[in-house]
């Protein structure tokens, strides 16, 4: 079974081809980051306008790369939600119309289910059940994953998402938008040459007794620091280091607590913040001590991408039986959608 995956939920157009036996055949990603950076954040209308220019050329590109054509497709998977309404509708409209003209099923996928399963795109892949830490610019959640569609929310952020906190802090330090990765780089470079921690930031909700997160206080603490001290390059690096350490500590402790609470021994870390090296090092180190294994998607599949949507679509269709998926051409996007509702 060959599935075309279409992801357009935010500011990245991701298209991929996934085959049940041959795995990922090709994928393409167009990131709009540069366009939005002039605005200091994602402008939903501009994101939608860009997606509609990108999807078809990228579909042609992945087919050419895989030396396949449209007639080889068995199904189309697209991100139905959650995400930006206008952006989701672009992918949904193209996917369903293509399904209509090719007479093959289209299946709407939950964006976070895509992320949950993204580690399964790797050769070193987890098997159900596992705990998933979803950390991106839009989400911070710990999920218990018993099987496809069997998701239980263990805890989530009460305010900012982890990636959002990274980006906002980076902005405070004048590192541009989206500055999360730049902030990490600054922190890592600092740590390589200086082992002294000058600032100590709070670890919000570390001892809350549950698996929820809160990052807005941490952001405020950074703001206070930034006002108190002259922002020299050295000070910026020290704040960046202290901030990253606080984030990594909280994310690590809560993830380990989630493993302890569920009795599971596999942790999957997905989403853009899952690319953070300090987070990966810290989690690996701590997990090894309790004989747990941590799985990460490849760096290129940490951010939004079409491959995870194609894979989720394939798994869903295999579970349902593709012959049982009715050809139905009425569709909607679901900008707000709880993963537990699947």
């Amino acid at each position, binding site marked *: 079974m060959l599935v075309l995956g279409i992801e357009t939920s935010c500011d990245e157009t991701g298209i991929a081809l996934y085959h049940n036996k041959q795995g990922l055949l090709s994928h393409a990603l167009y990131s709009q980051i540069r366009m939005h950076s002039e605005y200091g954040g994602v402008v939903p209308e501009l994101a939608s306008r860009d997606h509609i220019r990108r999807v078809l050329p990228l579909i042609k590109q992945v087919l050419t790369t895989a030396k396949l054509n449209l007639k080889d497709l068995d199904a189309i998977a697209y991100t139905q939600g959650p995400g930006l309404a206008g952006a989701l509708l672009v992918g949904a409209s193209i996917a369903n119309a293509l399904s209509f003209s090719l007479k093959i099923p289209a299946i709407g996928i939950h964006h976070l289910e895509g992320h949950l399963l993204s580690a399964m795109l790797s050769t070193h892949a987890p098997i159900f059940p596992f705990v998933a830490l979803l950390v991106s610019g839009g989400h911070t959640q710990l999920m218990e994953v018993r099987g496809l569609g069997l998701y239980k929310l263990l805890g989530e952020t009460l305010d900012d998402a982890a990636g959002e906190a990274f980006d906002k802090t980076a902005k405070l330090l004048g590192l541009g938008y989206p500055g999360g990765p730049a902030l990490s780089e600054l922190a890592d470079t600092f740590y390589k040459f200086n082992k002294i921690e000058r600032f100590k930031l709070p670890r919000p909700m570390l001892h809350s007794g549950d698996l929820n997160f809160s990052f807005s206080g941490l952001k405020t603490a950074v703001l206070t620091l930034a006002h108190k001290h002259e922002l020299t390059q050295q000070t910026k690096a020290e704040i960046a280091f202290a901030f990253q350490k606080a984030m990594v500590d909280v994310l690590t402790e809560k993830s380990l607590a989630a493993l302890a609470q569920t009795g599971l021994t596999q942790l999957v870390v997905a989403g853009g913040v899952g690319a953070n090296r300090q987070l990966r090092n810290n989690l690996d180190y701590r997990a090894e001590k309790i004989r747990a294994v941590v799985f990460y998607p490849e760096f290129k599949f940490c951010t939004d991408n079409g491959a995870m949507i194609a894979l989720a679509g394939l798994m869903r269709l295999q579970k349902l039986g593709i012959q049982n998926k009715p050809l139905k051409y*009425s569709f909607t996007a679901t900008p707000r959608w709880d993963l537990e509702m699947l």
Partner: protein
Amino acid sequence: MRILAFDTSTQYCSAALWVDGRVLYREMLAGKRHTEFLLPMIQEMLADAGAVLTQLDGIAFGSGPGSFTGLRIACGVAQGIALGADLPVLGISTLEALAQQVGDGNVVTALDARMGEIYYATYIKFADNWQSVNPPILCSPRNAPPILGNNWIACGSGFDVYNEVLLDCYNGCISRVHGEFNPHAREITQLAAPRFLEGLGVDPATISPLYIRNKVALKENER
């Protein structure tokens, strides 16, 4: 020649099939639920006509101006169908589709663009074609460009919402007003058919909506 067209640029949803000059169509008030109705509407219409996608000569859609989301739904659906069925595509101006609804003569078209503005264009029928005198623009109803003569027919939701202001501007120039006219797939097929005949259809990967309103956010250095 067989052309499929649809329009989702307003709260209405319409689809039409042109078969050698005969036009079948469907329409409904969709509100904001076009995605639920559009493809089933097309499917039913094609089935009733005994037509299949592979026998078509092209897909046309109301490319704008209009609701941004609506324009992208029509554009995306046109792209998807055309890609799968290997057909050429044409985007047709919703304002020109309004003029076509009037049929003949001199037509001033205006669609409500919200935020106190209208999408505006004027057309004159000349040798079976609409010549655009004023190509589509976005403006405040008060600043709508002047028109010459006294036999203009006005149409579109702009003349419904800003009726007094516009008729005041065009005092004596307008002989008839159709504020109730909305862009419709029926006229889109009529405008598209001769263009497909001329071979003007394009690759669906190259089409985009015509938004007109292009300044949708301020850059950081503009705030």
